[in-house]
């Protein structure tokens, strides 16, 4: 997917002014957070499960190559083919090769964020292969002129049912419906022949299980199963970091993933797919492939940002983010929005292409607290800010003022004079009132709120005067 994160500020402005979007954001705000909280009560000891989940993900990353080799061996032994892609482009080429080899005209797709990273749909179309999104949300976006998702698990969370109803009526040429059940039925009717006719299904993968060479897929719609069992060929496309050692580990992670995501104790479907159809199997594809994408992940191993690879894509961080919930997912400009996107986008796409993302955060740490694998997202954003400074990507005025502040603050006598000067200046700006309404040095502040006038004397001066007076 083409990155637009460099236009963050203008995209945010548009979205703040979009009353329909704002209404939709308000409507869903807090819903997932509340569901998550309610669902945690059904875990005996959330903190312990979280610690275990964190440990599973952290330890696998320490020996990622070993676990990937194990996965490849086991998957291969069970008849699947494991292919490796350095980046999204290579992933697209591999998928297209597979499609050509099997004479594929139509592909049904279950949800895969890695396919968004790779821009797979556009690549397939360019190669004359027709991709059909079958996750309801992704389907809606696809028929809306390939609109990008705004959330990693609820891709159309930014749309109201009225907007979807209008879209369906326009694209399907049917009468407008307002009932969600009816809308879903309409989509299902459109998709059924696609499931039956497609020669290939592409899915993502929530976890790759090394000991069995399986892929686990966690969904709430039946489409994931259809995509992976009905067509002749199944391709599971996911990132190399998704591997976990054992089925026991899967059990632990499944206790925390749906709860963190939607507040469900378990999702409607959990599929565990191992190899192609064997003799005697009732269903399954004739051919099964894994396309495992690096796309910048391997570079993070062993560095400051390795904890980010623990991410299990639950979306809790964005569901709890005051910024995400105010500006919506599209503002972020690439595949991953919210706190996890603010860390991943600059790492995968280049610091200079997403300069705003690590900055546009209040560091309130709601994300860090809810993350089921304990990723310290605010710390990682701070680290990215450091990298920006080191790379000369921050405005010189900001760097200078930070330096100057620190230089003065290390010199108490000079600092005290500076404080006195600042008090005088701010009080001059306030001009006898208790507040300042426009301030040249920080126009951003006064654009949105008043700035209070400081007291006539700083604490240090008043305190010193008191001490002199013997009190």
């Amino acid at each position: 997917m083409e990155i637009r994160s460099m236009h963050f500020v203008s995209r945010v402005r548009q979205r703040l002014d979009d009353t329909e979007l704002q209404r939709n954001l308000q409507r869903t705000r807090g819903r997932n957070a509340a569901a998550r909280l309610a669902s945690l009560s059904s875990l005996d000891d959330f903190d312990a499960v979280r610690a275990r989940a964190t440990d599973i993900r952290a330890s696998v990353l320490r020996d990622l190559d070993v676990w990937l080799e194990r996965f490849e061996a086991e998957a291969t032994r069970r008849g699947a083919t494991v292919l490796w892609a350095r980046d999204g482009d290579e992933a697209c080429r591999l998928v297209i090769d597979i499609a050509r080899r099997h004479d594929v005209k139509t592909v049904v797709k279950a949800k895969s964020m890695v396919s968004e990273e790779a821009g797979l749909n556009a690549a397939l179309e360019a190669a004359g292969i027709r991709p059909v999104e079958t996750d309801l949300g992704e389907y809606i976006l696809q028929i809306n002129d390939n609109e990008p998702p705004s959330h990693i698990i609820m891709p159309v969370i930014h749309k109201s049912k009225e907007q979807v109803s209008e879209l369906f009526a326009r694209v399907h040429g049917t009468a407008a419906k307002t009932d969600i059940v009816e809308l879903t039925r309409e989509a299902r009717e459109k998709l059924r022949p696609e499931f039956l006719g497609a020669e290939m299904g592409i899915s993502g993968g929530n976890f790759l299980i090394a000991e069995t060479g399986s892929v686990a897929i966690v969904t709430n719609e039946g489409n994931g199963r259809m995509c992976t069992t009905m067509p002749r060929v199944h391709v599971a496309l996911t990132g190399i970091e998704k591997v976990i050692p054992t089925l026991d580990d899967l059990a632990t992670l499944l206790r925390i993933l749906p709860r963190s995501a939607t507040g469900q104790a378990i999702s409607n479907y959990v599929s565990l797919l191992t190899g192609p159809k064997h003799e005697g199997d009732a269903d399954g594809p004739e051919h099964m492939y894994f396309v495992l994408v690096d796309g910048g992940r391997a570079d993070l191993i062993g560095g400051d940002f390795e904890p980010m690879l623990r991410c299990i894509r639950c979306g809790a961080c964005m569901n709890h983010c005051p910024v995400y919930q105010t500006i919506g997912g599209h503002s972020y400009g690439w595949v991953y929005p919210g706190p996890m996107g603010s860390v991943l986008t600059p790492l995968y796409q280049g610091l200079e292409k997403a300069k705003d993302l690590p900055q546009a955060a209040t560091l309130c740490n709601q994300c860090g607290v809810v993350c089921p694998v304990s990723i310290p997202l605010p710390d990682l954003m701070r680290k990215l800010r450091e990298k920006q400074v080191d790379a000369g990507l921050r405005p010189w005025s900001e760097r200078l003022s930070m330096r100057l502040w620190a230089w003065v603050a290390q010199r108490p006598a000079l600092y005290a004079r500076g404080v006195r000067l600042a008090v005088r200046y701010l009080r001059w700006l306030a001009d006898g009132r208790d507040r300042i309404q426009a301030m040249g040095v920080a126009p951003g502040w006064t654009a949105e709120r008043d700035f209070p006038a400081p007291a006539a004397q700083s604490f240090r001066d008043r305190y010193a005067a008191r001490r002199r007076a013997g009190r």
Partner: protein
Amino acid sequence: MSQPPHGSRGEVGLFVTCLVDLMRPSIGFAALKLIEAAGYTPVVPDTQTCCGQPGHNAGDARSARALAQKLIAEFEGFPCVVAPSGSCAGMIRTHYPHLFDDDDAWRIRAEALAAKTFELTQFLADVAGVTEVPGDFVGAVTYHDSCAGLRELGVKRQPRALLDRMPGVEQRPLNECEECCGFGGLFSVKYPDISGAIAQRKCDNIRASGAGTVALGDLGCMMNIEGRLRRIGDEGTQVIHIAELLAGRLDPD
């Protein structure tokens, strides 16, 4: 239980914070009064300036470290250090040690200071075990949990427990009280649109609480919330630092 006599419980280093020093000294004096009333002798090192948080959050690790070293040297001699700010106390407690991940000698000093540094209400409620509060405020109050105090230090119950000690205070719940107010330090200046929209939501919740007064523990959030309320024409809702509320009337100069 009556409070112990003045000063008998030892010295406490008070880190006033740069923002309180510059903008609202009364918070510092309120903190002094509360620490004294709890039976301690507050000491204010006069060389203190800033904890280094602006640099830390702006990616200027070098200046954060320099200011951290200065503060550590100034305060490590006290048995206990208090700041009337969740974010500055949080900076010292949770971030200082990590600033020196590659420097054992300083990390040990940072950890030692971190272990004895407290946000004001945390100090009063958990360390001092205060049961009497000098403030005499009368009215309905709602409380906003500032992010760093809440999530870095676990300050939640303490300010409310202290307010419970004030017979005139009627505490009202605040919807989304744990949500960020949109301040975020320089974020508020760099992304005013987003910051203003988040602050607006906070103000709406405060107004809907029905309390005429909102109390909180961080001056940054206070300036953000008060500034937004005034900008939208709300002159009535009072925004007050928890220290000022608990301390009540201060001695005139």
